[in-house]
């Protein structure tokens, strides 16, 4: 399943139009503690979080995550989006909660 294929079922809006959506989503991660994500993350994961500062992109990029999904319609700073575009990490936003988003992602077969 690609990042593009998550947009409809997870009710996502793409905030970084210049990033690639063809990356394969090979797992998921729901966490707002960057330290935990650093320790437990793996390449290809879709990361659901309400954290939106610059370091989110640094962590996502180091782990080679497929995308960052911002939950609860949280505001994302322009600097974060600029960095995400530079690092080619798609950032998508949904009004849904982290709980609902992860449930839907799991139901789509992402384990």
């Amino acid at each position, binding site marked *: 399943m690609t990042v593009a294929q998550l947009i409809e079922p997870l009710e996502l809006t793409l905030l970084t139009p210049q990033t690639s959506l063809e990356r394969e989503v090979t797992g998921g991660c729901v966490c707002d503690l960057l330290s935990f994500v650093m*320790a437990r993350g793996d390449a290809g994961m879709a990361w659901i979080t309400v954290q939106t500062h610059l370091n989110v992109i*640094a*962590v996502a990029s*180091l782990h*080679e995550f497929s995308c960052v999904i911002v939950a609860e319609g949280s505001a994302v700073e322009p600097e974060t989006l600029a960095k995400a575009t530079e690092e080619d990490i798609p950032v998508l936003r949904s009004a849904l909660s982290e709980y609902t988003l992860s449930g839907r992602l799991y139901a789509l077969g992402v384990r």
Partner: protein
Amino acid sequence: MERIEKETTYQETRKVEKGDFAAAGQISASYKNMLKRLGVDSKVVRRLAIASYEAEINLAIHTFGGSMTITVYPDHIVLVVKDTGPGIADIGLAMQEGYSTASEQVRMLGFGAGMGLPNMKRCSDTFEITSELGIGTTIEMGFLLTP
């Protein structure tokens, strides 16, 4: 980069300023790109990038500033992280997962979960830490290039 290809070793030192969260990750990203270009195994690159990111964040959060020096040898890489204080009172405690002295503000950013040092140790093949209160802390991590 030409220098790296011609010689078998390479060394680079970069400074990390106190409190500079916005810049955190830049050094690890540059290591990652450099090592990828050198053809280093992707798993080693990943481990080193994670360890160096934790080090960058630690320097920004906990210290008065410091430096990171990477040395690439033909069969291993050494990363030395050095700061100018304040030093760690109890290294045993600092190495325990879940123990942190980070401020509330740092925790709001999602850091300060007490996982940085244990994560560095887990990601490296050798890990040594020495610290003196009022002087500073030095961490030396080794990464083998061949399994």
